[in-house]
């Protein structure tokens, strides 16, 4: 089976490729949607972080989610990945997998990878080891005791290292990487998991312009092969990768559509400028 990194490395733009990639046994994509959020509500001490949020992500789609601070973007990620349980509403992965019933690890196994807002890598491990630990495998304890890396695994790690431009720093302790490199390493770790859906929380926060540029390229490469949900503040970056944009405001969807339409929506302008 071709790996995520392999697939992403190929530059062909075959329109059928996404379906071949995302249609896998266990995940029912018969209605083309990979992720459904239906009437999700979450409140913390009376504060409604999410208020009847509804959202549908199609298989192979790259969706950008924007919104002012406190709009509920990170809480939404928490609900999808099992970190926060919603007070009400349903979250489905494909047609059949109810994410509100699964643990974080089970959700990761089902095929959802998440990049945190603050880059979270294993700081005391080398870049290579970070990717090794993230790699898709049987992750039970008894397998980890005797796990050995074969040449296929070495190749996969090498492919991902090239993709995230860290091939020269494979032996470096991850804690010594620059902020931007850590962001990439984290994305690389997600790719090693071979996820069907990638959630990226502010992937270019703290990056230089050049790094932002490269990250946009990376996202564009990944789009189509994976389904991506990108939460970002950097409008410049969003306009470079966005196909469809969802604007969150006070825990629910304010507007949804192509970037141009959304940017000219008077309600969106009010939310962003009227505060």
């Amino acid at each position, binding site marked *: 089976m071709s790996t995520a990194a392999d697939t992403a490395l190929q530059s062909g733009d075959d329109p059928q490729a996404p379906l071949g990639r995302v249609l896998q046994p266990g995940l029912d994509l018969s209605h083309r949607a990979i992720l459904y959020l239906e009437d999700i509500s979450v409140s913390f001490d009376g504060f409604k972080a999410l208020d009847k949020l509804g959202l549908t992500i199609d298989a192979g789609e790259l969706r950008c989610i924007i919104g002012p601070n406190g709009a509920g973007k990170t809480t939404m990620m928490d609900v999808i990945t099992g*970190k926060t349980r919603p007070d009400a509403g349903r979250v489905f992965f494909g047609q059949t997998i109810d994410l509100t019933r699964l643990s974080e690890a089970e959700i990761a196994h089902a095929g959802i*990878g998440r990049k945190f807002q603050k880059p979270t890598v294993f700081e*005391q491990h080398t870049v290579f*080891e970070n990717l*090794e*630990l993230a790699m898709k495998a049987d*992750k039970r*304890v008894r397998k*980890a005791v005797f796990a050995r890396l074969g040449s296929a695994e070495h190749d996969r790690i090498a492919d991902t290292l090239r993709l995230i431009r860290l091939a020269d720093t494979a032996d470096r302790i991850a804690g010594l990487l620059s902020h931007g490199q850590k962001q990439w390493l984290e994305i690389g770790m997600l790719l090693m998991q071979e996820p069907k859906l990638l959630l990226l929380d502010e992937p270019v926060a703290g990056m230089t312009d050049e790094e932002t540029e490269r990250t946009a390229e990376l996202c564009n490469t990944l789009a189509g092969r994976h389904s991506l949900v990108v939460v970002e503040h950097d409008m410049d970056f969003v306009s470079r990768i966005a196909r469809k944009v969802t604007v969150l405001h006070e825990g629910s969807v304010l507007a949804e559509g192509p970037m141009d339409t959304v940017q000219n929506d008077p309600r969106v302008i009010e939310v962003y400028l009227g505060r």
Partner: protein
Amino acid sequence: MDAPPASGAPRLPGLLGPSGWLALAAFAVVLFVVFPLCNLVAPPDSAFHISAYWVTLIGKIMCYAMVALAMDLIWGYTGILSLGHGLFFALGGYAFGMYLMRQIGADGQYRVNMPDFMVFLDWKEFPWHWWMSDQFWWCALLVVGVPGLLAFVFGYFAFRSRVKGVYFSIITQALTYAAMLLFFRNATGFGGNNGFTDFKRILGIPITTPEMRMALFAITGAALIGTLLLGRYIVTSKLGRVLTAIRDAESRVMFSGYNTLWYKQFIWTLSAVICGVAGALYVPQVGIINPSEMSPANSIEIAIWVAVGGRGTLIGAVLGAGLVNGAKSWFTVAFPEYWLFFLGLLFIAVTLFMPRGVVGTLQRLRSRRP
């Protein structure tokens, strides 16, 4: 450290480097050749003679070193500070102590085939938990099983509820304190505050002979080396890398698809079992086990050994246990009333000036050299 292979693929760390194996071999020669020769063969007036005092002291410290290794696996590598490891050590000791008490047979003060404290309490038969305690294999099983089972059950509830950090430490502290109070009671059936002592035999062989003492010493040495290699295997395996990752970023580990509960359970239970074995080896050498082994201070001291030697290095744990206990045995003879002050000062000094402990500091100095 080996150079990366020519293909440029970075290597994962191996079990031990050449110098590591060499040091281990030297250590084994000292334990299994030098000590027996100097203790049993060299005459007492010879300059090479090692007295029984030293054999017992080093044997005792090696038991502590095993506990320190167990602590380093759970604290240094996995980031979970247990302040109750003395409990697992004591349980292993009591489990084997039961067998030693049964081996006394009718040679006790009352000349009855029952431990003296039971006769004193006017008990006519053994309590239920002494079942089969005259069987060596059964007690050996208890040495591993009781600490292991307790740790497994306790860990399951604590880790499943995601009890972390200082809260976990406090609960383990409370656990060992509660156990100590339980064992202080005569009715518990473990000899109350006197515990077990006056051992006579193991497997029918008298316990106080020099040969028996040396045999226990050698078995302890082998157990310590085995624990060190097992620990080294674990921390260089993928399992070990996951444990360290849990220490540094547990949420990332979970979102990478690992169920961290079972990883923590595994290392926590293994750590408790190692302590149990160490306790079982400790009791026949020291000749006594009582509830004070479960006192909170004892468990805190274990953490100090590891902190002094250097967390997350394994060898640091062994070294720390040796240094602190070596100092203790000298101090408690020379200045008995100042030992606890010294221990406190040592801990503060290490925390302030050597946060990575002795071994961590040495490693750092070495890596700075060009």
